[in-house]
Structure formats: structure tokens, C-alpha cells
């Protein structure tokens, strides 16, 4: 028995799973050559790490406040994937990476991911666990600690990728006052205006979630982005068809979606 009120959602989920899995299989067989548009925010990550090398100043990374046990876990997972990418680059360039954290459950992962990033770049011995800092799970205490660290360590690049809430603007302004290049991303709509106005590059919603696949340069993962495009096309079709049909009095499609 399918729960009432959730039938349409299940249908969407099934279609989405089939599409993405199908595309992943195609990509794995090498039958798909995705041409993904440039996402400026993601190409900027490497540039800003390069800038840190020139200036001899550290990079700051944070994933925000969306708990892994909440429905917003996906953005934290996306942020953590990017942390791995940044850790690899930082190790390659020989830049100090400071990861500040306010989610206790992310702390062991953060230590592991940063270390693995250094190991992947062949510089495992340079990893220093004191740079993966748990500050507080009390949001504003974390924020005060993070802005203090950003100032004292004179960071030259600031990456805020994950689930951000009220602290977004405080940290972005602190980063701006430090003259750091800032790349931010979240799916939390209320915080996007602040990132858009204050940060240099912003990953809006889906761009953040797709970022890890994008930077992986792995054909299979990139393939799944093509699947996402097909889903968007379907969404556009459904939205247009539903609105036009109900305008002429056929609200069956709309009713279907409320099942």
C-alpha cells in the first residue's frame, strides 16, 4: 500500500531514479559524452587557492549548519565532497587549510576527509589535525569563533559551502573585510541574497549539489548531471502542461499531483 498524498511524489522519485540510474549506466559504458557548461564558482576554487599560495596565507573552509540527521543533509554532504577536493588542491599547492566546524557529527568526517585529501596528493605527513577545528554546536558561538579565526589567521580565501543560516552574512562580511576571495553556496534561499551581494562567486542551490560531480571530472558522475537536465526538462513540461490544461478546465493532471 502506498501512503495517500505521497503517490505523485513516489512516481517522481521512481522516474528520477530510473533516469539517473539509466544515465549512470550509459556513462559507465562510455556511451555518453557530457559537455557541461562552466560554473564560474567552481573554476574559481582552484584560482583562489593559487592566490593563497602567492600570498602565503591560509584557506578557510566551512560547511554550515545543516545536520546530517535532517532532511537538509544533502547540502552538507555536497559541502564535504568539496572539502575533499579543496584539501587535495591545498596539499598540492602547499597552502594551509583551516576547516572550522559547528556540526559535531561532521567532526570525525572532517578530520578524515582532510587527511585523505592530503594523502591523495602524496603529502599525508603535512596533515595537521589542529586545523580541523570544532568550535561549537551553538551557532553564534561558532560564528564568533570563526570570524575571530578568519581575522587572526589572515585568510586569503573563504569557502562557505553547505547549509547556511543566519551566520552567513556575518561570516561573509568578515571574509570581505579580510580581503579574501569568497566562494559560497547553499540551497537555503533566505541566505542567497547575502551571498550574491557580498561573495565573489555563488553556487545557487543545484549548482552546489552538483559541484562534487563537476569537480570530480569523472565521466560517470558528470553523466548524472545530464540526467538532472532531463529531469528539469520534464519538470518544465509538467509545469507548463499542468497550467495550460487547468486553464482550459482540465485539472486532472493537477489533481494527479495531489494524490
Amino acid at each position: 500500500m502506498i501512503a495517500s498524498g505521497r503517490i505523485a511524489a513516489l512516481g517522481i522519485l521512481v522516474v528520477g531514479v530510473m533516469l539517473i540510474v539509466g544515465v549512470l549506466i550509459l556513462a559507465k559504458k562510455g556511451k555518453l559524452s557530457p559537455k557541461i557548461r562552466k560554473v564560474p564558482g567552481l573554476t574559481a576554487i582552484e584560482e583562489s587557492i593559487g592566490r593563497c599560495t602567492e600570498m602565503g596565507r591560509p584557506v578557510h573552509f566551512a560547511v554550515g549548519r545543516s545536520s546530517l540527521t535532517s532532511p537538509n543533509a544533502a547540502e552538507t554532504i555536497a559541502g564535504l565532497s568539496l572539502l575533499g577536493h579543496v584539501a587535495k588542491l591545498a596539499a598540492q599547492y602547499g597552502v594551509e587549510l583551516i576547516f572550522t566546524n559547528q556540526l559535531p557529527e561532521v567532526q570525525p568526517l572532517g578530520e578524515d576527509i582532510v587527511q585523505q585529501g592530503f594523502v591523495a596528493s602524496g603529502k599525508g605527513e603535512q596533515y595537521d589535525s589542529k586545523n580541523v577545528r570544532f568550535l561549537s554546536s551553538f551557532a553564534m558561538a561558532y560564528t564568533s569563533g570563526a570570524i575571530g579565526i578568519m581575522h587572526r589567521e589572515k585568510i586569503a580565501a573563504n569557502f562557505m559551502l553547505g547549509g547556511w543560516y543566519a551566520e552567513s552574512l556575518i561570516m561573509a562580511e568578515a571574509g570581505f573585510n579580510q580581503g579574501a576571495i569568497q566562494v559560497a553556496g547553499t540551497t537555503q534561499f533566505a541566505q542567497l541574497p547575502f551571498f550574491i551581494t557580498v561573495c565573489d562567486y555563488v553556487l545557487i542551490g543545484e549548482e552546489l549539489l552538483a559541484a562534487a560531480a563537476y569537480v570530480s571530472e569523472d565521466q560517470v558522475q558528470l553523466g548524472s548531471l545530464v540526467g538532472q537536465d532531463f529531469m528539469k526538462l520534464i519538470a518544465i513540461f509538467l509545469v507548463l502542461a499542468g497550467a495550460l490544461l487547468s486553464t482550459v478546465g482540465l485539472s486532472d493532471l493537477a489533481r494527479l499531483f495531489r494524490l
Partner: protein
Amino acid sequence: MIEAIGNVIAAACILSIFSYLYSENRAFRLVEHLFIGIAAGHMVVMTIFTLRSSLWVPLSRGSTVLVIPLVLGLLLYFIFSKKYSYIYRLSMALLIGVGTGLSLRAAAHANLAVQIAATMTPLVASPLDAFKTFNNILTLVMVVGTISYFFFHWEQRGILGASGKIGRYAMMIAFGASFGNTVMGRLAVLIGQVDFLLFTEGIYVIPVALVCFLVAAFYPGLKSKKPKKDRT
């Protein structure tokens, strides 16, 4: 009396944090560390109480299944072992699995099905209303535009390009409106703080802070030795 002392301490904390606006300084640093320390203690206390009620009490009353999270929770501490650190991943796997599941179902239901259904309304408002009809059409166009902004694979040219452009503008209006609308709520908290500083014993801290600030500003030699604002 105790209340007055409390207010003075509170005002000192507030002013020290505000002093960050000028520059990071010793007073801010001290309060920052104190704040983190107390917050950490508070969270530890809260967590212990939570674990007592959600783990220890039911476990001692015979809910033996709870041995699983107990063991998984303890396995997390293998992160500190050099040799066996990978064991902690078993516990994290539970969290990531549950988190992914929760995200998937929320995405499919609340964010896809419900939002798509909400857009499927008649465009022409009944009874006939030109303004409402215009709004309905505009909403539809803007929703489609915003979605097409996010295409990764297909080039943003032709219809897709035009639609994506509409999406960009729609988002800019939305960001502007959301920005303007948030100002009110953020200022409300600040007003409360200014009110507290002006109308409690906290007001005595303001001149002290000013003196410290002026001393620090005009005698740079002292700057490295004395904090800019009074300490708590």
C-alpha cells in the same frame, strides 16, 4: 544587586563583541573564548541529559536494541586511532544513509511534487481579473525561466537562453526583495541590544569602553599591552 552585576557583565560581553566591528582585539578575543567555552559546556550538559533520557533510561528498562546505537556511538572514537580509524566509518555510514534517505524523500515530496502541483493552477483568474491573470502568467514564466537557468548540459542559446535570462532577472528581483525584507528582523534583535545597553546598569560600561578605546587609539604603544575595551 546580583541583577545589576549580571547586567554589567552582560553589557561588557555585548560591547566586546561589538568592538569586532572596529577591529578584532583582545576584548573580543577574550569574550569569544569565554563564549565558546561556556557554550561547549552547555552543549555537553544538554547532550548528556538527552543521552540519559533517550539512551540510558530506556536501556536500563530493557530496550536492549539500544545497544546498537550505544556501540556505534562508541565506535566513533576510533577516529583517534591511527591504525583502526576506518572503523568510525561504520557509525558515520548510519548517519549518512539516514541523512540521504531523509533528503531524498523531502526532495521528492515537499520540494518536487508539492511545488510542481502548486504551479498547475488556471492562468486566467475567475472571476475574470486582468491583474491576477497577469500575475499567474508571470509566475509561470518566471518559474520556467528559473528552472532553465540551471541547465548544465545544453547550451544556453535560443529559447533556452532567453528563458534562462528571464530566470536570472526573476532571481535578482527575488534576492532583492528577500534582502530588503530580512533587514527588519535583523534590526529588531539589534534594537533590543541597544535598548538593553541604554536602559540597564549596562550603561556604565559604555564610558569605560570608550575610555579604553580612546587610550588604545591615541597611544598605539599601549595597544599591544592593553585591551581596547574593558574585560569581563
